[in-house]
């Protein structure tokens, strides 16, 4: 077993080094070798984790810089390794052609090498069973993803995204370091062990852990980096970050919640509330978004919210000692994390293909792609259906499980908690509906109707590798959805949990048969003399793309409904030929949505720190020597006074 782990490590190490050796090599062979090696490593680790899930845990130690990091692969870790490996595998296939799109050869090589490092660090975060080791690989993961976000450094927005991402990540990391130190000084060992602290300190620990992992996961109000970093980074990396990295943060949260003993009720409620807010705000923001990748990023926030909701439920039900329901909640959360990583990576990769083909991320300039990019649009459609939680795809199953847990909230006696759960459930239901609307918009505007720009018209189907990678994920989405009953039953037997789920296999077979029959009936019995012509346009000569429903138009009703959240500002700036403002010359009208979190939460403390720093810098940077000497003089006087007080 350990041999296999070593093999995975060495293979990934090789795939980091190989592209760097031929940094200036134009030929793609080295990159291909490296990507194939990554795939191999992913396959081995899937095999390894399946072994762990079915059998015994593996524990071993690695030595870094004279410190022993103990590592443990238990079922939780194995589960997340499977997520990392599946997505890693598909992204590697995708990257075989995607990496070649970059102009600079160095960039292509760096992309592959850093991606390998990224995957390696994520795998080791998950199997770390040691605080320092966890932190080591966690920071490595942050730095490698940071460098990957900065990939298109020529663009101004990428720079901004990079800085934003880095600052947020570091903010999360300092909270993590703090909580790790807190655990360390209380248990006296760096290995993960049960920590029992005073109620106050353990609450502090919970808060810092939640902020630390929540920042990485994209929990509201620390979610802002997602909407900058994902559009800026290469699509394969967005797929990895959104599909996997934010799940690693979820893994961290779960892992550390297991460690803290004596949990308090309000922790679960807090997680639930923040999860609900993230889910709702995430999808509301996604709805009005016109940048395809940013839309997906906001949708990730929503899904993280859903996962957090189930973790919150798990904690609440555990507190009320209802382990059976709690476990279902936990499984639902994990299952949703798994599903989300499948369809979100799928969506990001297909979005990447679309962006590559149309050279724009703005969905208002797309449209009609279904004709030229048949397979890509099919794959996107599968992803969209899954994420909208329509049966029989996998997204449906996990959301259904969460609803079932909500339904069982009767077993809790406290009316207040019941109320909170009810409110949360209704908001969660709203979220699901909005998600469906959001992806109807995304698919409709991007792929259907008439192309809105020249680029969209001339778009070409993606390369075969860029189809195979997402295709695997799409098939998985379907298979897992259809066979969810069988799979979960199998897992439930192992874990001793019972899920009552409908058997989707028969339903889907039934639906499929009905669908085929319906198709055949329409095909054979319906009007055979159909003619092809333009849709009737109320007498207009010919239709063009300007007349289509736009993305903004689609989301307008929702912007109106949720105007209290968006706070839209309408600006009209007309200029006139005459002084009285009668003859209109030209005008500028714009609709801007307030960036609530940036303007009210992020900027004020930043401005304050900036102000202090400016003042401080000024007093340190006078031209003359005199003030400096004066500072020293005063300091010495102060020191002497201290001496006078201290010495007795």
């Amino acid at each position, binding site marked *: 077993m350990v041999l296999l782990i070593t093999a995975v490590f060495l293979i990934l190490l090789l795939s980091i080094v190989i592209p760097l050796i031929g940094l200036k090599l134009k030929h793609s062979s080295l990159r291909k070798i490296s990507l194939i090696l990554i795939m191999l490593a992913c396959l081995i680790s899937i095999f390894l984790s399946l072994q762990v899930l079915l059998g015994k845990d593996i524990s071993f130690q690695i030595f870094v810089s004279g410190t022993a990091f103990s590592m443990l692969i238990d079922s939780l870790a194995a589960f997340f390794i499977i997520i990392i490996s599946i997505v890693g595998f598909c992204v590697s296939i995708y990257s075989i052609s995607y990496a070649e799109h970059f102009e600079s050869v160095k960039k292509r090589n760096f992309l592959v090498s850093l991606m390998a490092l990224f995957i390696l660090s994520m795998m080791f975060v998950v199997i770390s069973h040691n605080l320092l080791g966890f932190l080591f690989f966690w920071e490595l993961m942050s730095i490698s993803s940071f460098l990957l976000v900065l990939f298109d450094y020529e663009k101004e927005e990428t720079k901004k995204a990079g800085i934003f991402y880095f600052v947020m990540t570091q903010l999360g990391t300092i909270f993590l370091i703090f909580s790790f130190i807190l655990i360390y000084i209380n248990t006296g060992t760096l290995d993960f062990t049960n920590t029992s602290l005073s109620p106050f300190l353990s609450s502090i620990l919970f808060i810092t852990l939640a902020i630390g992992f929540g920042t990485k996961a994209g929990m509201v109000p620390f979610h802002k980096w997602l909407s900058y970093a994902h559009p800026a980074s290469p699509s394969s990396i967005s797929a990895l970050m959104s599909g996997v990295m934010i799940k690693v943060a979820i893994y961290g949260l779960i892992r550390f919640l297991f460690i803290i003993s004596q949990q308090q009720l309000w922790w679960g409620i807090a997680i639930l509330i923040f999860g609900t807010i993230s889910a709702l705000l995430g999808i509301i923001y996604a709805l009005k978004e016109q940048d395809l990748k940013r839309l997906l990023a906001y949708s990730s926030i929503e899904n993280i919210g859903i996962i957090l909701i189930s973790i919150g439920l798990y904690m609440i039900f555990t507190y009320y000692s209802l382990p059976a329901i709690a476990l279902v909640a936990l499984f639902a959360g994990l299952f949703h994390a798994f599903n989300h990583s499948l369809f979100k990576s799928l969506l990001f990769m297909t979005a990447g293909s679309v962006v590559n083909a149309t050279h724009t991320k703005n969905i208002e300039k797309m449209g009609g792609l279904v004709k030229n990019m048949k397979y890509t649009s099919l794959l996107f459609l599968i992803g969209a259906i899954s994420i909208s939680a329509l049966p029989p795809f996998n997204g449906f199953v996990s959301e259904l499980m969460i609803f079932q847990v909500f339904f069982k909230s009767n077993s809790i006696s406290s009316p207040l908690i019941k109320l909170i759960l009810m409110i949360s459930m209704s908001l969660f239901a709203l979220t699901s509906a909005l998600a469906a609307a959001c992806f109807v918009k995304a698919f409709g505007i991007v792929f259907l109707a008439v192309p809105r720009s020249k680029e969209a018209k001339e778009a070409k189907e993606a390369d075969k590798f860029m189809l195979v990678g997402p295709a695997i994920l799409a098939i998985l989405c379907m298979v897992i959805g259809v066979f969810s009953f069988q799979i979960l039953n199998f897992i439930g037997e192992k874990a001793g949990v019972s899920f009552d789920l409908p058997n989707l296999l028969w339903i889907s077979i039934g639906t499929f048969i009905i669908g085929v029959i319906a198709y055949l009936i329409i095909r054979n019995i319906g009007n055979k003399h159909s003619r092809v012509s333009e849709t009737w346009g109320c007498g207009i000569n010919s239709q063009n793309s300007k007349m289509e429903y736009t993305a903004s138009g689609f989301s307008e009703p929702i912007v109106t409904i949720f105007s209290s959240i968006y706070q839209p500002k309408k600006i009209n700036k007309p200029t006139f030929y005459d002084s009285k403002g009668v003859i209109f010359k030209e005008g500028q009208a714009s609709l801007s949505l307030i960036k609530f979190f940036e303007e009210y939460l992020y900027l004020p403390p930043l401005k304050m720190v900036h102000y202090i720093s400016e003042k401080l810098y000024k007093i340190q940077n006078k*031209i*003359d*020597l*005199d*003030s400096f*000497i*004066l500072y*020293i*003089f005063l300091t*010495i*006087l102060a020191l*002497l006074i201290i*001496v*006078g007080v201290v*010495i*007795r």
Partner: protein
Amino acid sequence: MNPVLIDELLKISLVLLVILTTIIISRRNLVSLINVYSLHSLVLSFIAILFFLSEGNYTFLFAAALTIISKSVLIPILLRWTKWHMKIFTDIEYHYLKPVSSIFVSLLIIIFSFFIFSKIKDYLGLSSLYYFGVIIGFSLVMIGFMIIFSRRKIIVKIIGYLVMENGVVLLSLFIGEMPLLIEMMVLMDLLVLVAITCILGFGMDSSMEEFHKKLNPFHNWFNRRAKK
């Protein structure tokens, strides 16, 4: 020699030092400042000689000789040379403190030192005269420091530094004499330091502020490659 007489002479010299320091604080003419500094150092070496007379330790005599040679002769020559090259004769600019307030602050400094040193008086085990010497020594250090930040011209700043140094020497005389080797090296160090600062000050012309004003046209000189 009569110990009582020596004690009296020590007292007189200490008072003399304080008076000379006050003069340094208030003087504006550079020539007289340098002269007063020579005198200051001379009094210091006189105190060293008094120590030699009372304790019979030749280290004190050597120290006195070294002090006279370096501080009353060599350094003033160096300073005069610098002053002559810089073509400045007076320092009328003050910063933070005017002469009168400077003298007031010096008084406060002496009181403050008295207060601080009263805390460790018992641990030092010194007679009251020696204790007084220690306080004066430390006060000289702080007053020298004050001169550095309250006067503009670099040459006066150097004199302030030298006053500080004299204070340190005074302190070491009253607490316990350092080994001769170290004494010599300290003096060597001082000489080099003063020489270096003189040269630097020379390069900088008269005062930092004016220098910066003059520098502005040159500002992009260093970065001229960027402009090309």
